[in-house]
C-alpha cells in the first residue's frame, strides 16, 4: 500500500458544491482506489474482543475510493465505498452505525498510522458516523487511546445512494502537518454497522497512502 498517492487538487468551485457528496465538482477529480483489509484481531486491546470475534469476520469493506480537493485553506476529501445494507444510525441497543475515518500522521512517519500513533507521536483523524450531526476530530497515541473532540472547523456531509456511501470531510489544511511541497502519510478506515463493527474492528488501509497537495 505504501506508495499509493492521493493528490489534492486545487479548486475554485463553490464550497457548497465541494461539500456536497454528489457535487458536480467531484466529477472532474480523479479518484484513487484503495484496498482495505481487516485490522489484525490479535492487536485488539482486549482479550474479550479477541475471543468474541475469533470465529467472526470483521473489516467487511474491501475497498474505497478517495478524491481530494483543496479550496483556499480547506482540505476536502470525498470517500466512497460499497455498503449494500447501510446502517444510518444507532437505532437499537444492539445496532451499530456505518462510519469512516481518515487519519493523518503528525510526525510524518507512516508507521504511526498502523498503531494509531504512539506516545510522543500522536495521529489525528477525522471521523464520521452515520446518524451523528457533526464529525469527530480525533487524536490518538496508540491503540485504545483515541480522544474525541468537537471541532467546529471540521464538517462532514454524507449520502447513501445505489449501494454506495459518499462522505465528504472538509477541514482546515493548517490542522495537518505538511512539510513544504511534500505530502503526509494518511490512512483510511471503514466500519460496517450491519456487521456490528466498532472500535478496532474495522477495515483499514494496511499500509498508508501519501496525501500530496498539488
Amino acid at each position, binding site marked *: 500500500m505504501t506508495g499509493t498517492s492521493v493528490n489534492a487538487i486545487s479548486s475554485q468551485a463553490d464550497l457548497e458544491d465541494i461539500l456536497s457528496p454528489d457535487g458536480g465538482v467531484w466529477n472532474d477529480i480523479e479518484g484513487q482506489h484503495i484496498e482495505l483489509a481487516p485490522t489484525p484481531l490479535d492487536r485488539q486491546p482486549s482479550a474479550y474482543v479477541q475471543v468474541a470475534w475469533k470465529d467472526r469476520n470483521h473489516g467487511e469493506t474491501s475497498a474505497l475510493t478517495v478524491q481530494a480537493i483543496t479550496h483556499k485553506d480547506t482540505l476536502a476529501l470525498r470517500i466512497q465505498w460499497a455498503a449494500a445494507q447501510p446502517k444510518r444510525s444507532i437505532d437499537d441497543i444492539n445496532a451499530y452505525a456505518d462510519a469512516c475515518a481518515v487519519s493523518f500522521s503528525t510526525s510524518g512517519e507512516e508507521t504511526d498510522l498502523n498503531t494509531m500513533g504512539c506516545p510522543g507521536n500522536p495521529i489525528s483523524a477525522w471521523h464520521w458516523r452515520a446518524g451523528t450531526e457533526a464529525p469527530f476530530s480525533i487524536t490518538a497515541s496508540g491503540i485504545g487511546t483515541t480522544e474525541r473532540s468537537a471541532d467546529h472547523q471540521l464538517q462532514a456531509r454524507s449520502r447513501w445512494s445505489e449501494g454506495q456511501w459518499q462522505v465528504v470531510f472538509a477541514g482546515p489544511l493548517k490542522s495537518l502537518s505538511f512539510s513544504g511541497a511534500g505530502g503526509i502519510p494518511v490512512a483510511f478506515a471503514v466500519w460496517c454497522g450491519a456487521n*456490528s463493527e466498532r472500535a478496532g474492528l474495522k477495515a483499514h488501509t494496511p499500509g498508508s497512502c501519501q496525501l500530496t497537495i498539488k
Partner: protein
Amino acid sequence: MDTGATTKHQFAMVFDLNKCLGCQTCSIACKTQWTRGNGMDPQWWNIVNTIPGKGTPKNAFDLGGGYKDGKPVAGELPGKAEWGEAWDFEYDNVFFKSGDTEERDYLRPREHDGKPPKWGPNWDEDMGGGEYPHSYFFYLPLVCMNCENPACLEACPRDSIYRRDEDGVILIDEERCHGYRFCVEACPYKRIYFNERRVIAQKCISCFPRLEEGVAPACVRQCPGRVRHVGYLDDPESHISKLVNTWKVALPLRPDFGVKPRVFYVPPSMPLAFNEDDEFDESQSRFPMDEMRKLFGPDVEQALATVESEREKVAAGGQSELMDILISRNWNDMLGPYQQDPGKMVRPLRRGND
C-alpha cells in the same frame, strides 16, 4: 478467606432472599436517584426479578459473558425487544377524554412505535415455576456486583471501566466511553445498560457519591424489608464478613460465571414439596435443588441447612448470632460504615434560593 485484598477495602452487599418481597422499592429508589437523565428512561440499574424466570433482559443469564476456565466467554448483545423500552402510556385517553365514558380507555402501555409491548423489565414477575400446588419462586434483586474479576473492565478496549482503589466499586468513565458495548456483552448478569441518546454504557454506581459521605446506597436505605446488608468484606466484624466468611450462608450468584461478584445472597428457604398423597414431603424442598445449586453453587445446601439449624435453635429458646444478624432488629446495624442519615445532612443551597 476472601478479603478482596486487591483494593484498600472491598465494598460488598448481602441480600437475604428470605426477606425480599419483590416490592421494587429498591428499583424505584435507584430510578428516582440516578436514572431519570437523558436517555436513561429504560435503565433499571437495580431490578428485582422472579426466579425461575427469564430475567431482565430476557434470558439474561443465558447470554454468555463472564469467564470459563479463566478465558472470556463471548456474550450476546440483546436489543430493545429483549430489554424492553420505557413505555408510553395513553394518559390522554384515560384522564382527559370527555364525553361518552365508553370511549375512555384504560392505561395501556405502548412501545414507541405504538405497538403493545411483548417484553419488559421483570416481565414474568410472579410466574415462577411448577404447577399449583407444587409452585415455587423467590424474588432476586440485582445490582452491579462489583466483581473482583470484572469481565466488563477487561472487555473494554479503551480502559473506560475502572475499579476504585478505596473500595473496589467498579465504575464506567462516561467521558471515555464510546458506547462500543463490549462490556454489555461481557457482563454475565447483564447489568450494564446502553444509553442510545448519549451513546455510552451506564450501570449501577453503588451510589458512590453517597458512600463517600458515609451514606448507604439508596436501594439499601429504602428497602422496607431489611433485605440488604452493606459493609466491607475485609472487615471481619462486619455483617458482610460474618455472613460470607464466618457463617458461610451468603453465596455468590452463579459462581460458574467466574467473575467473583461482591454481592452475595442468603439463599431462600423454600416450602416443602408435596408427595403424591398431597402431604408435605419433609425430605424435599419444593424448589428443585439442582436449580438452586446452579444459582448459588455447590455450597447452597449447607448454607440452607445452617440457616435452618440456627432458626430452630432460636425457636427452641436459644441464642444465635446468625439469626440476630439476619433478623436485624436494629436496622442501622445493616448499614456497616455507612451510618450517616442523609436527611440530617446540610444540603447545599439550590440556585435561586439565596
